[in-house]
Structure formats: structure tokens, C-alpha cells
């Protein structure tokens, strides 16, 4: 155990995390330069394209230190978006150290900070690294000052590195050995293993990534998952190298995996504790949360015949994305589909994109909303996850919506614009205090619904990326919410209904109508787009009728060109939904949400 070092990497997008990780793999001969694919760890295409880590990844390396001893490094790569902050906290809980990686030309970016604080909260040893020092624009001293300011380390503790050239990598390897403490834990105690990630394998079922906190896990042990209460057999245990390497046992301090034959990923919850059926641990590892979806949206197949295919795809997707939940629903406008729950908007986008890429499913997504509680005059309490389910005003007493505490850490110069944004989002400032001279923490209480749409992006842009953001639910509060309906030629399009605050209904309605005006193709008749609260129309746009086609010339070469063009148009019509006589392209449903 004394030769094990478990650590995670905390870095902003593009600060060179993947490249530096690759160098470590190379130096420790875990992988040869020849086999190296750029950025070995991010293995989902989507992750590479977006430059973000969605799933946690762990990899083991063996390192021969100058003292002649062999050390085992377990490096855990963590997701970098607030939607996945719970997963990050579990990865951090599995480590004793964290590499804080900062780009020498960009300096500390705010997104890094909330993860850094999580790591400090868990008493992790932080190894600060200034990366990309070989770049012309590198500002090594300035960035080092920032780091010292933030974590109070000594200048000489900062490692100067370049993932590209490999400079500083040997120093880093030494620091990992010398500065990160070996895992503590009692090998003789009852087994406690922390699940920090899980992936689905179509042959093996769900594979859980675990850290043994206490005790030993052997192949064949009967184990119990303490939070779900379910029991299984540890069919296979092993360590995580580039592929899984089976072992007969995992000891205290080890990071590895366990396969229990579980086929449904919902049964494995990140943060759960595995213990043995015989001689179980009396308590589970702290910090477990049942991750609940925060954002809901309807997902409908483009073609109603594809409903079963969509269900199939969602089920498969759920196998390695346990945080995705869904149940069937039906819409007057869109037919049969599913109401799905997501961790946040990024998660929603990822699911949508994975459905398209991995399952070839073309879907229509309705306007996302959060989960509300409606109270009727007869005292009933209803959970509303779909605007259509909001009780009629005649029976509705009041509605409560979920609030969150939002933590924003930023530079003092951005306080003003961040306050303006939060107030616009119906937020209340609860606390403001300076962490350092140059860094201020703002705590707001904001309705969750307000951060669902464009909060994060706007926060990033007004603070030039220099604002970290994290949030936690603080319960439900009564709110003046109304259902805004969108009508096309007086017919309700239920898929475009949204629950919004009364004060915001009008601007929101106007924006949607305007956007739809741009998105709907003109037809041979006038189209009225209206936004309504109940019977009251609050916004309206009109699309004039199409008078004339471009009936261009049609001679020799024009014929096939024109045919192909019209064939394409007809093909596009298949992708439209009919509301009365009005045809609405699928794109309209997707783009109507991009309001800014």
C-alpha cells in the first residue's frame, strides 16, 4: 500500500490535460509512443470533438523511482462540467492527490476552481503544474503567482512542464511519489470499496470502477452494494490499464474494477459502497447521493413508427448512462415519445447527440423544463414535469419550483455584471466574500429553471470565462408560474408549451414567436404564430403567404438539377410535422430553443 499513489487531474479544457496524461503513460511505459493515439483517455468521439471529458476514466501505471522501488500510480481523469460535479466529487473521494494543471499562457481559469476546492475539501495533496511553458506566449511567473495566491503553496513546489516536449515530466513523477501520501486504510477492516464510475460492456455487463478504502476484495467474494442493498458475486476483479487486467484480489488502497454480472446500469450507482456479505462494514462511505435529474424534456421520434426503436435506443444508452431516466409520454402534436430526465443541459445535448450518432435516431426535443410541484385548491400535490400536466387555473392553487444555491467564484471586476445576470434570472444574492484579494465568492439563490437555459454560457461570456459555477438544490419555493402556449393558426402546439415566470412570459413569448417566424417555411396561406397564457394572446407574428415559386428555366441540364432539388425538398418534407395544415420542420423544434 505504501507504494500506491492515487490521484486525479484538475484542469480547464485545452490546458493540456490529455497530452500531459499521454506523456505520463509514455514515461511509465504503460503505453509505447507508437501505440499512442492522440489523447488516449478521452475515448468517446464526442469527448474528443468537444474537448471535454464526460465520463471518468482511470488508468494504472507502474513507475520505477530513483529509490529503486516500483510505485503504482492510479490516475483518474474527471469530467469538467457542472452537470457532472457529483461524479467529480466521487472521483476526488477515491484519491489522495490531485494534479492542478494550468496553461502557462492562459492562467487559471475559473472552471478549474470549483473542482480544486472540492479536492481541497477532501484533503487532497495538490501538485500544481504550469503546463505548456514552451509556448511563446507563456507567462510562467504570472501564472505561478496566481497559483500561489490560490492555494498558498511555495513557488518551488510548482512544477514547470510541457506535455508537448515532455519537459518537467520526470519532476512530476518524483513529486507524485514524494508528495502525494500513500493511501490510508485498514487492510484488516471489513471491505469498503467506493464506486466512482461505471461503464457498460455488451459482453460483460456493467463494469464498476472502484477504490478499495478498507479491506480486501477477492474474485468470487459475495458482495453487497450498501445503498441499493443488492447482493452479487464478484465474478472478476482487476486493475485498469489500457484494457482491464484481471487479478485475484484488490487490496486496500488499490484502484481497479469489479464485474458482478449486473446488466442494468441503474443497479450500480456512483458513490455507492461495496462491502462483503460476510463480515460487512457497519457503515457506507460518506457522500453518496442518489443523482436526480434536474432537467426534463420530451424526446419524440421524427416518425411515429420509430417509437419502439427509440425506446430500444434509450434503453441501450441508459446502460452506460445511469443518470438518464425516461418514461413514455404522449403529445397531441408529436404523438408518442418519452419524457426524459437529465443532469443538466449539457447532458441533454449529449444524449441527443449520442442518439443521433450511435443509434441513428432522429428526434424532436421539446422545450426543457424542471420539475415543479403543483398544489390544487383541494389540497392535492402533483409533480409536474411536463407543462401539459399543469392543472387548469380553475383548480390550481399555487405552484412551487425548485431553487438552487449557486456558487460563483470570480474576479472582483466581474461582480457587477454577474449580479445583473443573476438578478435578471430572478436570483437573490445571499452572500459575498473575498477568498483572496483577487477572487470573490458570490452565493445566489436562484430558481433552477433560470439556469437551465443559457445561464452558464452567459456567465462564461460576461466573465470572459473567469467565473466558476456550481450549484446545489435548496428545496422548493412558491412562485408565480404560468403556462405559455404557442399556437399556429390558433392550434396549440403542446410540444412548444413552457412554464415560465409571469413577469417573463411576455418577453419569452415574443422571442419564441419571432424565432418561429424565421424557422417556419412559408406556405400558400398566412400563418399566425401566437403566444398565449390561457386565452390571452401576449405575442404574435405573421408569416405571409407564398405567392410564387421560383419557376426558373428548365432546359437540357436544368432538368436533372431541378429534379434533384425538388426531390430534396420532398425528402425534407418527410421530416416535417403537420399541425393542421401547417408543416413544421424538425429543425424548428431544435432551433427554437436557441433564443439568443
Amino acid at each position, binding site marked *: 500500500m505504501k507504494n500506491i499513489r492515487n490521484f486525479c487531474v484538475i484542469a480547464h479544457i485545452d490546458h493540456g490535460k490529455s497530452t500531459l496524461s499521454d506523456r505520463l503513460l509514455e514515461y511509465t511505459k504503460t503505453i509505447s509512443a507508437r501505440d499512442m493515439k492522440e489523447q488516449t483517455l478521452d475515448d468517446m468521439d464526442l469527448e474528443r470533438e468537444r474537448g471535454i471529458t464526460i465520463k471518468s476514466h482511470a488508468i494504472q501505471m507502474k513507475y520505477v523511482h530513483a529509490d529503486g522501488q516500483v510505485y503504482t500510480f492510479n490516475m483518474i481523469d474527471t469530467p469538467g462540467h457542472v452537470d457532472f460535479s457529483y461524479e467529480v466529487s466521487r472521483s476526488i473521494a477515491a484519491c489522495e492527490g490531485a494534479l492542478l494543471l494550468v496553461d502557462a499562457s492562459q492562467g487559471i481559469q475559473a472552471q478549474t476552481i470549483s473542482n480544486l476546492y472540492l479536492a481541497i475539501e477532501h484533503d487532497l495533496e495538490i501538485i500544481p503544474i504550469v503546463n505548456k511553458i514552451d509556448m511563446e506566449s507563456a507567462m510562467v511567473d504570472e501564472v505561478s503567482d496566481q497559483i500561489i495566491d490560490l492555494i498558498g503553496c511555495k513557488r518551488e513546489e510548482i512544477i514547470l512542464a510541457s506535455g508537448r516536449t515532455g519537459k518537467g515530466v520526470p519532476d512530476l513523477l518524483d513529486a507524485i511519489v514524494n508528495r502525494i501520501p500513500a493511501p490510508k486504510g485498514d487492510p484488516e477492516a471489513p471491505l469498503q470499496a467506493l464506486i466512482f464510475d461505471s461503464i457498460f460492456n455488451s459482453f460483460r455487463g456493467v463494469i464498476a470502477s472502484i477504490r478499495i478504502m478498507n479491506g480486501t476484495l477477492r474474485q468470487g467474494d459475495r458482495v453487497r452494494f450498501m445503498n441499493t442493498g443488492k447482493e452479487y458475486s464478484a465474478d472478476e476483479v482487476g486493475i485498469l490499464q489500457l484494457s482491464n487486467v484481471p487479478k485475484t484480489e484488490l487490496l486496500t488502497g488499490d484502484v481497479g474494477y469489479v464485474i458482478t454480472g449486473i446488466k442494468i446500469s441503474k443497479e450500480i450507482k456512483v458513490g455507492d459502497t461495496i462491502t462483503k456479505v460476510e463480515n460487512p462494514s457497519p457503515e457506507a462511505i460518506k457522500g453518496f447521493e442518489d443523482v436526480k435529474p434536474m432537467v426534463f424534456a420530451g424526446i419524440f421520434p421524427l416518425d411515429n413508427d420509430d417509437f419502439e426503436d427509440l425506446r430500444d435506443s434509450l434503453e441501450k444508452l441508459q446502460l452506460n448512462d445511469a443518470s438518464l431516466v425516461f418514461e413514455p409520454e404522449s403529445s397531441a402534436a408529436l404523438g408518442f415519445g418519452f419524457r426524459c430526465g437529465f443532469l443538466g443541459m449539457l447532458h441533454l445535448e449529449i444524449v441527443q447527440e449520442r442518439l443521433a450518432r450511435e443509434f441513428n435516431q432522429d428526434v424532436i426535443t421539446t422545450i426543457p423544463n424542471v420539475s415543479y410541484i403543483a398544489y390544487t385548491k383541494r389540497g392535492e400535490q402533483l409533480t409536474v414535469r411536463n407543462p401539459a400536466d399543469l392543472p387548469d387555473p380553475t383548480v390550481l392553487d399555487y405552484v412551487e419550483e425548485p431553487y438552487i444555491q449557486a456558487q460563483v467564484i470570480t474576479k472582483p471586476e466581474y461582480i457587477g455584471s454577474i449580479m445583473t445576470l443573476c438578478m435578471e434570472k430572478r436570483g437573490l444574492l445571499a452572500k459575498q466574500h473575498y477568498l483572496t484579494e483577487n477572487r470573490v465568492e458570490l452565493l445566489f439563490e436562484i430558481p433552477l429553471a433560470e439556469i437551465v437555459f443559457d445561464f452558464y454560457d452567459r456567465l462564461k461570456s460576461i466573465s470572459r470565462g473567469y467565473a466558476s459555477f456550481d450549484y446545489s438544490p435548496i428545496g422548493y419555493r412558491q412562485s408565480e408560474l404560468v403556462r405559455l402556449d404557442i399556437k399556429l393558426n390558433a392550434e396549440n402546439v403542446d410540444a412548444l408549451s413552457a412554464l415560465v415566470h409571469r413577469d417573463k412570459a411576455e418577453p419569452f413569448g415574443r422571442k419564441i414567436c419571432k424565432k418561429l417566424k424565421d424557422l417556419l417555411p412559408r406556405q400558400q396561406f398566412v400563418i399566425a404564430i401566437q403566444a398565449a397564457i390561457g386565452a390571452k394572446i401576449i405575442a404574435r407574428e405573421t408569416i405571409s403567404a407564398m405567392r410564387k415559386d*421560383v419557376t426558373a428555366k428548365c432546359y437540357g441540364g436544368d432538368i436533372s438539377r431541378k429534379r434533384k432539388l425538388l426531390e430534396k425538398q420532398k425528402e425534407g418534407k418527410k421530416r416535417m410535422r403537420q399541425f393542421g395544415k401547417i408543416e413544421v420542420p424538425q429543425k424548428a423544434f431544435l432551433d427554437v430553443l436557441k433564443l439568443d
Partner: protein
Amino acid sequence: MPGIYLHIPFCKQACHYCNFHFSTSLKQKDALLEAMLRELEWRREELKGEEVQTIYLGGGTPSLLDESELRRLFDTIYKWYPVAPDAEVTLEANPDDLTAAKLQVLRHTPVNRLSIGVQSFAEADLRLMNRAHNAVEARTCIEQALAAGFSNLTVDLIYGSPTTSDAQWETNVRTLTELGIPHLSCYCLTVEPKTALDFFVQKGKTPPVDEEQASRQFEMLMDIMEAEGYEHYEISNFARPGFYSRHNASYWQGVTYLGIGPSAHSFDGRQRKWNVANNAKYIKSLLSIAPPTEISILEGDLFEKETLTAAQRYNEYVMISLRTSWGCRLDVIRALGPRFEQLFLKGIRDFILQDAVQQEGEVFRLTRPGKLIADRIAMELFEV
């Protein structure tokens, strides 16, 4: 009944709306002509010895060809192809090329029909389109062509331009009817992607085509032409009786045609072929091999081809025939397959109810309102 189309891909200057294939550099003119002569020779088998009824020189600007170039072209055609004595031989000409001298030259070629790209008699319109001629040339060239003995004339006009008032449009049309021009092709100004006009519209320098204005001017056109005794025999074409474009009509009636020159299309009833739309590549591929070589080895370099599926033939037939006064015939559709008949009858009902299509026994024709939305009607009837 076949026809031959020859594409002359050169222009003196680029019209802002044009997306046809052309080059404003005349350097390669000789080599190109040489290549076209070869293509004519090598592809003669494709018309199977049938008598050629129509020849059409389009472009680009065929009026840029000089006397000897025209002579070589026609000599080669007449050498390798049997041409009917009464064949229609059309040459597209720009007003600025049609000098009295040029007209005399043309009189001594087989050309017996001129298609003149006037577009407008208003200076503002011509400037917006970046035409090479001015308003005066527009009119004098017609008078000179008539004087030179070309009675079978057709003139192109463009409506819907932001510079064209209704009054100017009426003047444009009436000028031609009064001059007794027997055939008019009238197109709505279309902003084709990647043209200069497209660029100007995107930049806000030129207003986009106003649909109301375009519809209004199209309707004005139909009113005038009807009153003047012209037949609206194709959506963009009007002719005095006996003056239909025989060549263009063959496109719309599925007749075989051979397209020579870069970007030219050919059709043999089932298969469409099109030549590469690049002068250098066209020349290179044709001059790279020596006869007698099978032209088929140049597939991919010189030309591409596509054999139409039944559905594509149905789509094309519906699309083209609905635009013509001959109309769309159910017996033709039936012959392509019973499913097409069903599809067509199902789709056409709505348009009959909307008074966009009129049925006469087994023939379906667009009504006046239908002519405004011909593309949409065809698209709705398509099988994809």
C-alpha cells in the same frame, strides 16, 4: 428526332445573376473548339444515324464565335450527322455582338433562328445584371436582325429585378410584341447561390427579389401575351402559332439529345450524361487520347452519367410536362408503373380542388394560379 446542343463556354463579361458554366478568358477558345470537334466526331454513334432535327448553340455566348469557327463547327456537324433539310438551327446571341457585319456572317451559316439575350430595355436593369450591352443596343440589334432577314427570332427578358418597375416591364414586353418578335422567353430574376448577385443580396447592396412584384409581373406578362395572341406553351416561353422552339420542346417531350462541350447534358430516353463543367479538364481529356478510341473510357474525366430509375423518370415527367401546354398525361404515367398512377392521382386531387390544376380526361394542366406554383405542385407529386 434527335437534337444537338453545343455549349460555347465563353463570355465577354460575367452577368451578375448567371450560374451557367462559362469563362471570361478567351485564351483557350481554339483548343476548346478543337476538343468540341473531336467530341462531335467521336460521339456520333450515340444518335444512331437518326436525322438531326434541331441544333442549338448555347452558352456562354456563342455569338463570340467568328466566321471560320462557326464554319468549322457546322462542317463537322454536317460531316458526321445527317441533318434534316428543315432543321431548326438556333444561335444564342448577345446584343453587343449582333453587328450588321456579324449578322451577315450568320446569314451564311445554317443558323436560321436567333435567341437574343436582351433581358431589358432599361439601363438600370442592365447595369444591375452587369450585361455587356446598353439599352440602345438592345433595340437596334433586334431591328438589324430583322433587317438582315432573321424572322425566326426569340428574345429573353428578365422580370422581378428590383430595378424593374411594372411600367418598365410592360414597356419591355410591348416593345417586343410591337416589333413582331414571334417568340419570347421570360424568366424571373433568380438569385442563384454563389453568384455575384447572391453576394450583393447577402451584403444588402441589392434588395432581394420581391415576390409580390415578381408574381405581379408574371401575371402582367401572361395578360399581355394572351391578348397579343401568343401561346403560353411552357411556363417561361410564349410563341406565336408555329414558332415554338422545336429544340427546347424536345427537352420537354423526352426526345433524345446530344450535348457537346463542357457542362453540356445529353439524354437518350433513359440515361442522362453530363460533361465536366471545366474548360481545362474538358480540353485535356478529349485531346489526351487519339481516335479511334471508345469515348466511354473518358467516363469520370470527361463526363458522368446516370441511368434514371422509374421513379426518377416519373418525377421528371411530372415536373416537365406540367410546365407545358401539352400537360401531364395519365397514360404516360401509367406506362411507368401502376404505383405512379395512384400516387399522382392521390396528390393531384388537392391541386384540382384548389383550382391550380385542370383535368381534361386523362390530361392535367396547370391553371393560371397553378402556374405560379408549378415547382411546389411537382414536388408534392414526386416519389422519393
